[in-house]
């Protein structure tokens, strides 16, 4: 039955000193599924995410990619298995142009002439063509997010992991991002870690809620949003959820 799962974790646990940031998480994602991870600050979403991407080595438990154990692998090895990763803080080559950034990503999968086309296509898709020659370090946060998304998607990975992609975006940028994520999800499995409820409601289907390092609820987004317990753990976010 595990054959149609692209990503699974078994008893995944991450401790920092005495703090258990991720506690015994059993998670699974089907091929081609779009999954949102929700949870209040400090719920362990980002730590969980970093265990998936190899940026952290979990204390115990395992991560499997299509049944292959990738626990403790280095990030670049995981990426080379066809995983596209966007980190929470935009992670870009600040000193070089938008086009060069995206082309470097496209070059991973394509030969030179194709890479140029692919980079241009991705810039168009992500709405950053007008910024092509700008130095990335000088862009606004939301624009940097889009550039990084373009880089991730330029590699055409079958599994895409996005950590807070909508942070710092304007309304227009967020709409574009939502369309992009939905389009990507037609061809690839996607995990989105996000705070922004307005954004979540546009894209989410099946959703996992984290609280205190563990999975708190897993259900369709409509159920989640009307769940009293979920609303309570969000406290301040209650109004958002109800709205």
């Amino acid at each position, binding site marked *: 039955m595990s054959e149609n799962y692209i990503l699974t974790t078994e008893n995944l646990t991450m401790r920092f000193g005495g703090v258990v940031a991720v506690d015994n998480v059993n998670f699974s994602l089907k091929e081609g599924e779009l999954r949102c991870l929700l949870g209040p600050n400090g719920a362990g979403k980002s730590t969980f995410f970093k265990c998936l*991407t190899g940026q952290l080595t979990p204390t115990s438990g395992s991560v499997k990619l299509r049944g292959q154990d990738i626990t403790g692998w280095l*990030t*670049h090895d995981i990426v080379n298995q066809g995983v596209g990763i966007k*980190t929470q803080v935009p*992670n870009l*080559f600040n*000193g*070089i142009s938008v086009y060069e950034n995206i082309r470097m990503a496209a070059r*991973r999968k394509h030969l030179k002439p194709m890479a140029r086309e692919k980079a241009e296509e991705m810039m168009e898709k992500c709405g950053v063509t007008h910024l092509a020659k700008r130095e990335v370090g000088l862009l606004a946060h939301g624009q940097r997010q889009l550039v990084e998304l373009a880089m991730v998607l330029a590699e055409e990975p079958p599994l895409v992991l996005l950590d807070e992609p909508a942070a710092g975006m304007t309304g227009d940028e967020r709409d574009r991002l939502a369309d992009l994520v939905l389009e990507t999800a037609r061809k690839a499995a996607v995990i989105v870690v996000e705070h922004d409820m307005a954004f979540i409601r546009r894209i989410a289907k099946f959703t996992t809620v984290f609280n205190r390092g563990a999975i708190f609820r897993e259900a369709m987004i409509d159920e989640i949003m009307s769940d009293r317990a979920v609303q309570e753990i969000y406290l301040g976010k209650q109004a958002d959820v109800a709205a």
Partner: protein
Amino acid sequence: MERSIAKDVGFYVMLGIGLVLMFIGPLIWDLFQIMQITQYVVLSVYALSLAYIWGFGGILSFGQAAFFGLGAYTFAVASINMGDTTLPFVLSFILPAAFGAGLGYFMFYGRLSEVYLGVVTMVVTLIFWKLINHTAGPEYSIGDARLGGFNGIPSIPILNVPGDPSAWLDPAQMFQVFMAILIIVYVVLRLIIASDFGRVSVGIRENEERSSLLGYDIRRHKVIVFAIGSGIAGMSGAMWATYQTFIDPNAFSMEMSAKALVWVMAGGIGTLAGPILAVVLLQWLSLKLGTMHILNNYVILGGIMMILVLLLPKGLLPTFQALSLRLWTIGKSKMKERTPKGKAASDV
């Protein structure tokens, strides 16, 4: 971003100057000048080795002299044993490059931080220096070559025409060959930097995490960059050995490592032309200051190093570029200021 070569005017200018000097130089200089300039050429190759790994690979080595010395001794030992200098010259690239790859494996796969990297490279140099200083006895011989400890190795063969050990190069020919090597190293490094491999190096320098998120193995990449730099440094050591026909443990000295750092810092990190200019300028300067007998080499080198770090952290060439750019923009904005004033005057 490193521009593609096709549009890089500076590259053609440097290339042109190099080729002109190579062919015209021996016709217009006397023997002493040729010898002097040959020395600058050798040290420029050495400077380029660090300029590449530091400026375009983000690897700061405090022990470039380890590879310089290793290349020099490799050439000395091999050429004394073989007679012909061609294979020893090739070995003086390969052996240091291999050693650099081995050391790089420990450093980069261990993911040492920058500070630790600096300390380890420096200590490696130090140990080479100590070991080679202790090889004075006749039991320390490799074939016909006695290592000679602190006395060094004398009568190292002069570079010969490949295959004919009796056909030594005269000083003018040696200058031309070395100039050709400098040009080749410069062009090859420029091509590497403009290639995909080079772009990845620059990417790693800019942001290691993003590079690994693109699937690049930064550890392996750094080992390769470091090995290339080590090989070039080793080759410059061989050039130094055959130019002087003598080599002693000072090739491994801290001073020698510090010189490479000073040239790259002075010329500007992230350029290739800058360090070459810095070699010529600073070697000439320390020659002039040295003849005054008030200061010694240590004071001069140390003083320049501290001044560079504290006052010109970007180096001479980039500082000069930035300064001229600023003067230009100030000039332009003054022009702009003048126009509205003129208008205001006519309005009145």
